[in-house]
């Protein structure tokens, strides 16, 4: 009984600590609220089943991200279209943004959605999960210098995309 209670407590702690960031990550890779929720729930379902194998709590974040990425690659990536309903979900402090800041944010979001996975994934791991370059390197199985290059290029691409869209006034076509 104690062991079951302990397992439930550990699971709930993981859910409280990481579900928001996992949902955010899922949302940015599949661009669809319903699918992101399914992906996160499936991730936690698998985590619950394999929780006994998680010996180091410090490794939990990377472990959950790995489960989510595998699940996405296994069942979602090639079989689900890229819906784009990011605009339907709530962005924190939305109302506090001035119109020009909101425009910039929307341009950025549009740019993030257009990024290739090789640039998007390390960027999300860094910004959403707060991973260091070394942690991203380990998570994605690529060298640290490759991570640095992709992060730099990701930001450069976003800046170029923002400038291009801003100049051409494409903001009306957002999402």
């Amino acid at each position, binding site marked *: 009984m104690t062991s079951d209670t302990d397992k439930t407590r550990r699971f709930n702690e993981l859910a409280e600590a990481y579900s928001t960031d996992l*949902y955010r990550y899922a949302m940015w890779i599949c661009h669809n*609220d319903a699918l992101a*929720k399914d992906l996160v729930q499936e991730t936690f379902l698998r985590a619950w089943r394999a929780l006994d194998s998680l010996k180091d709590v410090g490794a939990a974040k990377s472990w959950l991200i790995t489960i989510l990425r595998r699940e996405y690659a296994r069942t979602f990536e090639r*079989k689900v279209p890229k819906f784009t309903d990011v605009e339907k979900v709530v962005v924190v402090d939305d109302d506090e943004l001035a119109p020009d800041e909101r425009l910039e944010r929307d341009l*950025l979001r549009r740019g993030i959605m257009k990024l290739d996975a090789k640039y998007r994934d390390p960027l999300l791991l860094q910004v959403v999960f707060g991973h260091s370059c070394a942690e991203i390197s380990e998570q994605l199985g690529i060298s640290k210098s490759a991570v*640095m290059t992709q992060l730099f290029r990701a930001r450069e691409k976003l800046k170029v995309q923002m400038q291009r869209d801003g100049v051409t006034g494409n903001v009306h076509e957002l999402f």
Partner: protein
Amino acid sequence: MSMNFSEFKKLIGADPWNRDSETLRARHSAPEFEKAANDAETFERKLQSALHIEMPADLLKDIKKISHQPAQRRNWMPLALAASLVIAVGAVSMVWKQSHQWDSVEAYLADHYAHDGAAVLGHSSDNISEQDLAEMTGKIMASLNASAGQQLTGRIKFIKFCPTPEGRGAHMVVNTDQGPMTIIFMPGTQVTDGEMVEFDQMHAFMVDLEHGSAAIIGRRSQPVESLETLVRNSLKTGMVET
């Protein structure tokens, strides 16, 4: 050997919050370095704001429900026995298999539909070609060891994987003359054929298939049973995966 400006820009472009001693030394070495670092941090705040999406309020609650399920899969109750219990007790309207999360198929349908049924009902496939949608339907159904015939595929406007009482299934939204309706394909779940289930403002017509089952869900004003023949003729189940 100190960093030149180009190296510094690449470093802070990859890691804007880098605070190691070499980076800080370079940052304070000249005004253009300081400005580049400030610009990178400003951009980073915008990036963080853009990525900062609120999680739906009910998701954490749904995740925590997972821990209420038994650790090991329970054995299936033999259908005949289950059916006789249903008749004897008279309290349950449907034959169902023991599940991880739900006490009954009705509970599953109510829970799942409340989760995203209404939300995906309004999804438009305008940005997806019919061919892509048909291809995706084929792939999803094939991975569930099933197929959807042309007649059904032609009506599908949205499809995704979804949880079911026994493993993964498919959640479809189909066009009908009476408006969009939902079909949940449950490859591992058996139901009482022809049963009508009601939950919230919806009702569902249950179709037992050769392998698994389907629930046709609509508003109570919608004739969900009208899709029975389409579902029965189009959903082929238990195919051998190639």
